[in-house]
């Protein structure tokens, strides 16, 4: 019988305990055990950023993380960014400036930018360094960069 690990964590403020095979990718726990399908799997190679979530305040690629590594962690996913009718300034700017098309890479970008926002990064760091770690095949990035500048400038 395959060994299983118990993983206790907080996701979007709620406590969860799951039992998993040690090889289980953390993104699969989020998506298929907890039903948080807003986090997407784009490459399973850590290169596209679609699966980005925030673990203990840092943006991480949940496809490169094994589920047992989340034991004891506080995790935020895109579903937890804005529960009510109001969205985060990053989400609002991406909407107003058309910074998304098919939407598949979007949750990862939202989470990376929200983490940068919460860490107090400057707009230029968010635009140049954070976005550089995310692949988007639809937008050509032009409007995503504009959205970052607008959100940080509180222009909306």
């Amino acid at each position: 019988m395959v060994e299983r690990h118990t993983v206790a964590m907080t996701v979007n403020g709620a406590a969860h305990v799951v039992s998993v095979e040690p090889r289980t990718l953390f993104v699969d726990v989020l998506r298929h055990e907890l039903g948080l399908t807003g986090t997407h799997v784009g490459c399973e190679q850590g290169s596209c950023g679609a699966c980005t979530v925030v673990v203990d305040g840092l943006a991480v690629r949940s496809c490169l993380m094994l589920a047992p590594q989340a034991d004891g962690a506080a995790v935020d996913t895109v579903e937890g960014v804005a529960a009510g009718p109001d969205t985060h300034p990053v989400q609002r700017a991406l909407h107003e400036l058309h910074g998304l098309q098919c939407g598949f890479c979007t949750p990862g970008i939202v989470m990376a930018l929200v983490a940068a926002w919460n860490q107090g990064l400057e707009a230029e760091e968010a635009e140049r360094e954070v976005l550089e770690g995310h692949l988007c095949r639809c937008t050509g990035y032009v409007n995503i960069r504009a959205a970052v500048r607008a959100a940080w400038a509180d222009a909306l």
Partner: protein
Amino acid sequence: MISQRLVGRAVPRVEDDRFLRGRGRYLDDIELPGLLHAAIVRSSVAHGIVRGLDRGGGAGGAGSVALVLGPEEVRARAAGLVPVVWVVPGQRDVGHPLVGDRVRYVGEPVGVVVASSRYYAEDALDRLYLETDELPAVVSPEEALAPDAPLLYPDWGTNVAVEPESGDGADHTDAVFAGAGGVLRARMHMGRLAGSPMEPRGILAVPDAGTGKLTVWISTQAPHAVRDAMAAVLGLPQHLIRVIGPDVGGGFGVKDHIYEDELMVCLAALELGRPVKWVEDRRESLTVTAQARGHVQDVEVAYHPDGTLLALRTYGVRDAGANLSIFGAGPHVSLAANLPGPYRWRAVRATGPVVVTNKVPSGAYRGFGQPQAAMIRERAIDMVADQLGLDPVELRRRNMLGPDDLPFTTRTSLTYENGDYPANLARAAELMEAGPPPPADGRSRGVGFSSYVELTGVGPTSTNKVLGVRVGTYETATVRMATDSSVSVITGSSPHGQGHETSFAQLAADRLGVPLERISLIHSDTDVTPYSPYGTAASRSITVGGGALVLAAEELADKIRRIAAQLLEAAPEDVVLAEGRAVVAGTTAGVSLTEVAEQAWRGYDLPDGMTPGLVATRVLDPENLSFSYGTHACQVAVDRATGMVEVERFVVVHDCGTVVNPLIVEGQVHGGVAQGLGAVLLEEVVFSDDGQPLTATFLDYLLPTSSTMPDVQTEHSEHPSPHIPGGMKGMGEGGTIAAPAAILNAIARALPDAAARITDIPMTPSRLWELLQDTAGA
């Protein structure tokens, strides 16, 4: 009277909210009770005779393997061939068996494994071994043409799948060349590309034992085409297959195909009587999903010393891969048809073989032959300008069709409808000149241009007979107003990122006087939506699908006005629909649309002879294609020491007729330019000499990132299409079509010493650096 309130406005998209909150519903987000998971058995060799599947410990391992279908089982269960929808005279490939007697590329699917989780299905794959008698692989199309080359299809006696001849005849073309004062000759290589939507492909097949119906969720651009192919291969009647497209995370052409692995998942689900899901991983996406381009073209341009372009002739060896995919010779027909671009020519001719090789098949990818045509023509025109010592903008201007030349029928039988091509060229040049002076940082700089005409809005079904397309390319729309005056628009068009839910609603809102939030779009469900066998491709959604919607909405608006006129004791032509009301123009008299809708559905006291209800359905089969056009211009900086190219500025001046939503249109331009940039600077699918794919991750196959992609300055010049209701022209592919040549021309301008040899894409840093070393050495 139609009051234009939303069309033309930069309305933020209605679909954004769910995507931004993680509430989208993509294929892999769908969970069902009793769901099983598939993994695909694939060939590990590029060419071989299939002997069978060694099951080793395949069945009965950990994790309850439910089913293994090997090549024999798949073959026995397939009722028909995977269809080819585009067939031209002499084409040898007109349909493929689901699993043949040999494998012809690494990754070719030959079976399927189903287990209780994807982890266990992949564990089971590790215990299976496909037995093959390996054959020598043919990887380059030039080798495939050699007399002693191994044959992929021995029955053919050749590796040439088809050798289309397009445009003017040889004699006429030769005569124009013979009379020319100058001829440019260049060989151009274009690398193979992978469309790479961020969401890979995926399918969920759900058989219903009670009704005998198979419901299929699939990440696709063309649910109806998928349904038709499934019926043919699975041997089910079409009415017992329901294909639904959920939110689709990009397609770019590669999801306009139906794939053998997807069909095998359906076979497995039917065999088990259980829902089965399969989601492609990125390695599969980069190695087994249809690829595109992959050409060597020998290009010749005949010209007069006075700068008149006379003739364009190209002989191309085109790499199809292991078969012609469902699109057959389509991309090659499109390449040839689109060679003339916005210029006058006395002869245009394209020939050359489409060759099968032991690589994944190529097929549809954004532009579909048009990027190759633009690259051939626009790079060649710049090289002619160099030979003549003329400014490349001036050479383009002299030969460009003017507004008074339109409508104009090209040497390849396309009829451009309207517009002002030189105005866009001039404006792009003006915008480039207005830019800031480049910094003195030691890099070489150049400015490049590329003008194009974009074939869109495919298209009149009558021409499909001539082109060899075996399906219709009309679209149908139904507009339905409920008793509360909210509106459902039902379309055969199937979005995957383009924003149909917003732009289609904008078209309906203006005609019905209903606010955007009270309109929803019903799409991508073959049980509910009208038949659309070509799907969302060829920049045809807003033109053909949107045009059909305009017709249906106008018909419904007429009925609403007639009912309202009776209620208001006014003439129907005096009734205006706006802001949820029907009002008599110039007065305060009015009635709410809800009152009108209640009356219509109650069904009595209607105008004489009127049927109850508020539904209108119209089919649009446009009389012509619609042709967008424009000019791209850019400035690059080249570091001669490293071969690194930076695109510093990018300008697009284009005309796509009526701009329904500038946000969406410009977003499409940006994305298209980015894919064009990728094709020139970064992206290339590479194989080893024995056919093993070497670019199976995003660390090897490089997509543009934010730092590689400049901002894009976009201007629109609107000449509405006369034969599309609403005046739209398609524009989803223009960026990808024109950008490669603009960037390559800019690189050549930056490096005048090497310009004559800058003819290949991708022009990666290593390739450019080597070329510069060779040039310096010579």
